[in-house]
């Protein structure tokens, strides 16, 4: 079970991966820009720090370390951190602007299709609140829902000549897609192990952060939420990579998950990969890159046919890909919390309509 909150406060900028289409010819492409860093980045930092200055048995750490994220919080209240809002909830700007998806006759339906979601994050303490009860921020104060507290900030780094304050003729400019977080905000990850408090390099060369670990108490809302068994409907709060070692699927292909395609509310999949350790002995400089996979984005809502009746910790390992580096569940893949979805019973169609429906899922 997760025992610590790892709180990361940037001391300056962070690096946001610039996106899928970045090339030297097109330095402005930011489609698919990526921030905050995945849980894999933090588990890499924990393992690397343990090799530099041992704080835990390395083999034990490697086997048992699990990290999930990324989330964010206000610096003064890291325990009430913000997680992605389930896609079934639509939260608009004003207090009366809300909507919810419901499953009626196996079709997703909502009352106000024109309403656009304004908020993407919800505080963990408000997870069980009804959508209409979610409080919007007032006068800059954060309540139950929030908008991302970071801004992309492209910074051009000139590479000057050795003996002149003049940019080099060749390769003289480098554009960094930097990210600045609001001064009173921090990144939060869940972890089974703690990291010694201090300053670390995180998210890009020369970017420094202050990391502190905070124990999760038994009675905290996150602890209670994580212990709740997942029923028929749940929402991901981290990206999920399901499937086999070289195949990404949208849900685990296992009868224990669902014997029927689950109903889902989701967005386009996001590329997901990580770097692990050193390569072969003859090529020590090159680090090993994992197989590129697609992840189901955080916020995705699943409705399965029968209740899973398991907590995330009890999910069978075969649901996640493994066999290369660490099992993906250790990177917090597919961490989910139960959500309520209104499910209207399927009305049995009349005999003449039944014929038309044959062949449909």
């Amino acid at each position: 079970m997760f025992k610590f909150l790892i709180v990361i406060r940037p001391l300056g900028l962070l690096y946001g991966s610039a996106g899928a289409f970045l090339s030297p010819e097109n330095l402005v492409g930011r489609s698919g820009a990526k921030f905050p860093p995945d849980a894999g980045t933090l588990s890499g930092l924990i393992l690397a720090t343990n090799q530099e200055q041992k704080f835990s048995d390395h083999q034990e750490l490697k086997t048992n370390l699990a990290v999930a994220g990324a989330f964010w919080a206000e610096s003064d209240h890291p325990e009430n951190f913000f997680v992605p809002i389930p896609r079934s909830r639509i939260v608009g700007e004003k207090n009366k602007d809300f909507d919810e998806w419901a499953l009626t006759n196996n079709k997703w339906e909502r009352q106000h299709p024109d309403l656009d979601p304004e908020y993407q994050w919800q505080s963990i303490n408000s997870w069980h609140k009804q959508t209409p009860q979610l409080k919007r921020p007032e006068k800059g104060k954060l309540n139950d829902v929030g908008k991302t507290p970071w801004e992309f900030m492209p910074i051009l780094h000139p590479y000057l000549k050795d003996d002149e304050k003049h940019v080099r003729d060749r390769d003289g400019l480098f554009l960094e897609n930097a990210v600045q977080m609001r001064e009173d905000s921090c990144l939060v990850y869940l972890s089974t192990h703690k990291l010694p408090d201090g300053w670390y390099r995180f998210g890009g060369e020369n970017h420094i952060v202050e990391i502190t670990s905070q124990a999760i108490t038994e009675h905290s809302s996150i602890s209670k939420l994580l212990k709740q068994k997942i029923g028929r409907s749940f929402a991901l709060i981290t990206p999920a990579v399901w499937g086999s070692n070289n195949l990404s699927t949208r849900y685990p292909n296992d009868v224990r998950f669902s014997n029927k395609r689950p109903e889902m509310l989701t967005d386009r999949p996001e590329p997901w990969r990580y770097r692990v350790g050193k390569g072969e002995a003859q090529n020590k400089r090159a680090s090993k890159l994992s197989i590129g996979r697609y992840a189901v984005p955080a916020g995705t809502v699943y409705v399965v046919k029968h209740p899973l009746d398991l907590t995330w910790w009890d999910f069978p390992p075969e649901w996640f890909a493994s066999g290369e580096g660490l099992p993906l569940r250790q990177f917090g893949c597919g961490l989910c919390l139960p959500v309520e979805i209104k499910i209207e019973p399927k009305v049995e169609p009349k005999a003449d309509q039944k014929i038309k429906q044959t062949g449909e899922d």
Partner: protein
Amino acid sequence: MYKKAYGIIETLAPLHVGAAAGEESGNLNLIFRDQFTQTGIIAGSSIRGRFRSDMRSKRIEWLESCLSNVSNDFKDLYLAKDDTSYLNWLEEEVKKLGQSLECPKNLDEHNWYGHHAVEGRPDGGTTEAIVKFEYASLVWLPVFCPGQPVVWISCPRLLKRYKLITGCDAPIPKPYTAAKTLRGRQISDRGTAKQILFFNLGFMEIEQQIEAEAMQKWIPQGVDLAVESFVVVGDNDIAMLHDMALYRQSRIKMMDDMKKVDGGAFFNVEALPEGSVLIFPIALKQSGWKPFGDDASQDMYFGGLESVGFGRCHVTLAGDYQ
């Protein structure tokens, strides 16, 4: 985990770190700004570049000392060559003597600030820097008040970063706080005993006054400022006051032979005023870094327009860096 240190920059001349003339389509050369407070910053890479360049000059001196044993007129020999930089030429000459180019580690800029990419080497031959710098943000910024002494302003958001970097344990003053010793104006006919500060664009009421000792905790090490001129303003006002405080000038280039502007050689520049105080974090993988020798402070130049007298700063290092 890194050793924690930080640097304090006090500007002794206007400081411009941002776009240079010709890099923007307009003719106002803006400084780099923080996204949330819209106040000026110095990018960490600029700070690193300055420290790297200063250490490079020390390495050049070391290379010169290697050559001076052999000949005294090597500088004249270099002047005959104009296709290579002085550093490269020195390195070639030292190599020709059969000497190693490895200088003492404390003089090697590549050791402390990372090796740049070299063509032909695997992975570019780059190395990780031992010393890491983050951007410098404002702590105190002087603003002109007509008919009153100049005040130095800050805001809770900027002080929060200062607190995070220095580990200062004082509570952050609320917006519109000044020390009790502030020399503002008392306007009794407005029915308030509060002090008022007049700026170019309006006035500001001081809502809280705290003891001078409490304000003293927010004066960074090595900075000579008086508590009676400090005012903490709101996060939402700092951007406007900052814009009011910036040093702005229109500059031109004359024709070589006539006192007339050379075509379109006209631009406006903005800069942080002299007397601004900034802070930047420094993280070190190893100790032993002595960029200023045994001293903790030194004058350094940052940013552009050095030729018109910009960029001179006094830098003080503090924390666990040596």
